[in-house]
Every structure is written in structure tokens, then in C-alpha cells.
């Protein structure tokens, strides 16, 4: 297969620039001001907690709740992360336990296709 490297380079640049734009927008709007508007600094305090939970749902968005295995491998692993983190408060342990369980479940009990 032959690849047109100018087209590829253009595509790569567009993706890079638009990505940079999305990350820069809040700084372009508010970064130049000496003092942040009240509402923005308030949002800066409260928004992360909302965003992180939305991000978790975003990570889990492709689980099929209506067909076998009904998202069980993901939901069980999420539960394990929560329980282990609640008990031990060790980020590394919580991630390993949840991810380990997920990899085992998708290979054994809830194997689908392939």
C-alpha cells in the first residue's frame, strides 16, 4: 500500500492543532486576566468532582446493558475497585485488583465470541 505522506502529515497536523485548541480554550478566555472572575474560580473548585464522575461513565459507555453479559464484568470490577479502595486507600492496589478481576472475568466466566 502506498501512502501519500503529505496528506498524512496534513491530517496529523489538523488533529494536533484542534486537540491543542480544545485544551487551550479556557486559558485563552481567562488566562490573560489578572484576576479570575468569581464564577470561574468557583467552577474551578467544584467542576473537577463532577467531571471525574462523568469521565468514569464515559469510560464505561460501551458496555452492553441489554445483552449478555449485561455489563457484568465491568460492573463487578468497578465494585471491587470501590471496595478495595474503601478498605485500603491504596490507589495502586485498587487499580490492580479491579483490572486483574476484569481481565480474568472477560477470559473465563464472561468470554464472548472470538
Amino acid at each position, binding site marked *: *500500500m502506498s*501512502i501519500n505522506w503529505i*496528506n*498524512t502529515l*496534513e*491530517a*496529523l497536523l*489538523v*488533529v*494536533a492543532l*484542534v*486537540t*491543542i*485548541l*480544545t*485544551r*487551550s*480554550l*479556557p*486559558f485563552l478566555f*481567562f*488566562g490573560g486576566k489578572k484576576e*479570575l472572575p468569581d*464564577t*470561574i474560580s*468557583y*467552577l*474551578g473548585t*467544584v*467542576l*473537577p*468532582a*463532577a*467531571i*471525574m*464522575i*462523568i*469521565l*468514569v*461513565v*464515559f*469510560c*464505561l*459507555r*460501551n458496555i452492553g446493558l441489554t445483552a449478555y453479559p449485561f455489563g457484568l464484568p*465491568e460492573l463487578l*470490577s*468497578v465494585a471491587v*475497585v470501590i471496595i478495595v*479502595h474503601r478498605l485500603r486507600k491504596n*490507589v*495502586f492496589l*485498587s*487499580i490492580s485488583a*479491579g*483490572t486483574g478481576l*476484569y*481481565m480474568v472475568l*472477560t*477470559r473465563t466466566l464472561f468470554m464472548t465470541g472470538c
Partner: protein
Amino acid sequence: MMKSFVFAFKQAIPVFFPYLFIGIAFGVLMDEAGYTAGWSFLSGIFIYAGSMQIVLVSLLTAGASLGTIAVMTFFVNARHIFYGIAFIEKFKKMGRKYPYMIVTLTDEVYSIFCSIDYPDEVDVRKTDFYITLILHLVWILSCLAGALFGQLIPYDLAGIEFSATAFFITVCMNQWQSMDSHLPAITGLISALAFYFILGPSQFILPALAVSVLVLIVVRSRWLNDQKKNRGLELEAGLTEQAEEISYEY
């Protein structure tokens, strides 16, 4: 300096696994699509956005127009618009590194900054920069490794991407504990679930983020009240403890 670096490295470790997995997956896809390792390397350096790089492979092989690519990138990454709001003051203090901190603010770096708790002996600015740099390098190397050696990996690593989800959950829980008011987290959860069930998996995130911002602005006075009330309760709890201690003595 050493202390800041070691601390930064420890904070970055949980993200190594999702980065390695997604970076390698991207490199393998690029390689399979016929792009040499140099392209994966360049993408890792200049794009540095996991899901978008994987989308890029299909856009490239489909021969999508630059306009389509631009619009697609905007929507895949639009959630990042909401990330910087919390770190405007923090990054402004970074001097020459200010632009670098902004363009490397990925989901994972964002979540580390959301829950980080600096010990006294580390330099906050250096730590932030090291975390960012270490993870950027790990990402670039993962993309490159996938392109060069991806086909040789004998183990099936499928499922290890769950480590990103697991990490985000721990961040949520740490935030939950450190915040006086759970209003923001609950707002996020309800709007995410509501829009997920109304709009489906591919379209829910932007409305969920936008509505959360609006709701949080509306409930601002309630949040301030919660803050005050909790401070008050802590004070009260402190007093009762003292009173109990006194009564035990008798």
C-alpha cells in the same frame, strides 16, 4: 529536586498501564494500516490524545477530508475544554512551561492533578512539570513500541485498558472524601446517567458536562451554605469531644 521527581514518578505510575496499553494498541493499528513507526512517534509527540489517535487511524485509512478530521477531532476532544478551568492559576505560575502544561493536559494528567496531595518537602511546580513530562514520554515510547514491536508481544493484554477506569474511580473516591459538599459529584453523576440513557453512549458527554456547569452555577449559594454548615459542624463536633473528655474525667 530529587524528592520532587520521586514523588512525581510515584503519582504517575498508576497511569503507566493505560498509557502503555493504549499507546501500543495505537502503534499496532498504525503499523497494520501501513504507516511506518515514524508516524506513530510523531502522533505521540504532537497529538498526545489516546482515543483521538485511535480514531485518526480509521480516518486516515478511510481517506477522510481535512474538514471532517477537524470536526471529528473537535468533538472527540471537546471535553478537554472543561478541564483547564480548574488549573488556570496553577499553570500561570509555571512561567515558560505554561504552554506545555496546557497542551499536555490529557484525561489522565487532569485526574492526577485533581486528587494530588503534595507533601511539604516537594516543590509543587517542579512536581507538576515532572508528572506531565514523565507521562508524555511514557506515551511517546508506548506509541513507538507498539509500531516497532507490537506484533511480537506474546501475551494478550486485552482488558488492561480497564486500569484507566479504575484509576478514575479512585480519584472520584479521594475527591469525595476531601470535599465538604458532595453536590458537584452528585450533579455530575446524575447528568451523566440521564444523558447517557437519553442520548446514548456516543453523544452524552458534552451535554452532561455543559448541564453540570449550568447546574453548579445555579446551586452556588447552596454550595456556599454547605461549606459554612460543615465548618460549623466541625467546630461543634470539636466542642462536644472536648465536653465528653471533660465529663469522662469526672
